[in-house]
């Protein structure tokens, strides 16, 4: 990471920050759906906590994107909310894994395991970004990601090595989502430009460590790493599953019903 950010197209950084914000807001939304529906009250609190962490990350990424947008356009009125509330399904660029439905508690646990371990490794690298704001966000978010990882690991062990029902549910969940994990490690043209400029993380380099760590946890939980023979991708290009449209409909409806209103 050596080149200067001067040579970089600002729009690329805006898009990149917005993508990271999209990942965070979408998974935060899914986690928040658990509040009042958790298996016991301690988990309502814990899932709410993790949802709040992701919401916080989304706000930091979007605010960065908004500030850069204002600089670029000579405006002052673009905010985090423009990114969350006023973009459509085709404009959202989150990874598909994040948007899949809420599912049961095993599904949520399996998904969080894959995402949290990814985030931990991703944020360690983002800390080194030449974009000082992104680096600072990563420092803050990495602390939370470590806690998220520990939590997901604990739950994977409990469910995988709990009862035969919980074991079966965990295995089914992993099988159901595994094919969505591959796109976490893709880098498209936009990200490659930013990787070259020392701003974005080269996700292709994260796969080996991620797989090693996730495999160890899955195996300790007496579960099996699913077959590698299917892969779905397209989130970063706005090519989404049908889940995202409904999520955005719900999330954006009040905001869009009152154009220009303050809340």
């Amino acid at each position: 990471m050596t080149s200067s950010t001067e040579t970089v197209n600002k729009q690329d950084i805006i898009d990149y920050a917005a993508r990271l914000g999209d990942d965070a807001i979408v998974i935060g939304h899914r986690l928040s759906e658990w509040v009042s529906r958790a298996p016991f009250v301690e988990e309502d609190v814990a899932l709410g906590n993790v949802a709040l962490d992701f919401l916080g990350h989304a706000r930091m990424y979007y605010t960065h994107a908004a500030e850069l947008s204002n600089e670029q356009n000579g405006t002052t009125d673009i905010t985090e909310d423009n990114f969350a509330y006023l973009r459509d399904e085709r404009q959202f660029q989150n990874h598909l894994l994040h948007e899949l439905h809420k599912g049961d508690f095993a599904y949520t646990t399996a998904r969080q395991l894959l995402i949290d371990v990814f985030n931990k490794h991703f944020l360690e690298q983002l800390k080194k970004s030449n974009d000082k704001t992104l680096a600072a966000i990563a420092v803050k978010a990495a602390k939370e990601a470590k806690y998220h990882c520990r939590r997901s690991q604990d739950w994977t062990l409990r469910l995988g090595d709990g009862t035969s029902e919980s074991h079966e549910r965990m295995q089914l969940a992993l099988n159901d989502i595994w094919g969505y994990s591959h796109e976490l490690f893709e880098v498209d043209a936009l990200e490659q430009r930013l990787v070259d400029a020392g701003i974005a993380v080269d996700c292709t380099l994260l796969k080996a460590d991620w797989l090693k760590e996730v495999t160890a946890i899955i195996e300790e939980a007496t579960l099996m790493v699913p077959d590698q023979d299917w892969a779905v991708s397209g989130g970063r290009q706005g090519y989404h599953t049908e889940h995202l449209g409904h999520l955005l409909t719900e999330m954006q409806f009040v905001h869009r019903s009152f154009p220009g209103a303050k809340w």
Partner: protein
Amino acid sequence: MTKYNKSEAELEASFQQRVDSEQKIEPKDWMPEAYRKNLIRQMSQHAHSEIIGMQPEGNWITRAPSLRRKTVLLSKVQDEAGHGLYLYSATETLGIERSELIAALQSGKAKYASIFNYPAQTWGDMGAIGWLVDGAAIVNQVSLQRTSYGPYARGMIRICKEESFHQRQGYVIMMELAKGTPAQKQMAQDSLNRFYWPSLMMFGPHDSESAHSAKSMKWKIKRETNDDLRQKFIDQTVPQIAYLGLEHPDKDLVWNEEKGQHDSGEIDWDEFYAVINGNGHSNRQRIQHHVKAHEEGAWVRDAMSAYQQKKTQRKVNAETAA
């Protein structure tokens, strides 16, 4: 109970003396069975209210109109879960398990605050609920900081700190709406209209009608009467409504110079009893939602204890082998 070496009447007299001299009753102290039962009823009802109260607001987390408001609402609802937990633990000090309390909630044997049987229909309701419902709860809970049972009193002190943030976030929502577009202001007025009277009902029936009041006052479980607490709330809310520039829903409200308080219109007690007795919009939904989450979580709780057992067993095996 030879341990105490005193007759029931003597025990009760010294208990009452402690209560009268403002000493806290602690879990290990002797207490009349009816005091214990009364406390379990009230504290578990309070705990259940925190838990069921997550639903109407939880219903809006995914739809909050800005990221800032979403963050605040989510942490507010999460606080309520924490209050529920805290109050369940405090109730358990009276010798009853959380699982029994939850079973009583789900069977309808235990109550929760009837206000949560009202539906949260608009974003404005997030404002009205935080401001008025948490506001009314605070008036009650501030009074309960002096309740005679130690764990309950200490719980209230801790909970009240967070409740003022809850009321504040509700009022902030109302302020934004009230100074916003005409449609937003209309939304605020509509929410105020729907939640004002039910908030007054939260204090319970008039003192003359209240089933549990006399004994609870003597034992200092309750410190102020329903009507006195309600009056405080009515009086504190008048300037808050005026500041928002909204219309007061009580058309009969007048300032009574002599009493130094507001005289207000009569509450619709038929509505109060109708909703308590199951005719609210959401009574069935609230319990079914709770039961569904609880049942869907059963396999998770089972897995957790199975895992814990295996872990303990492995440790034992390892130690025996060593």
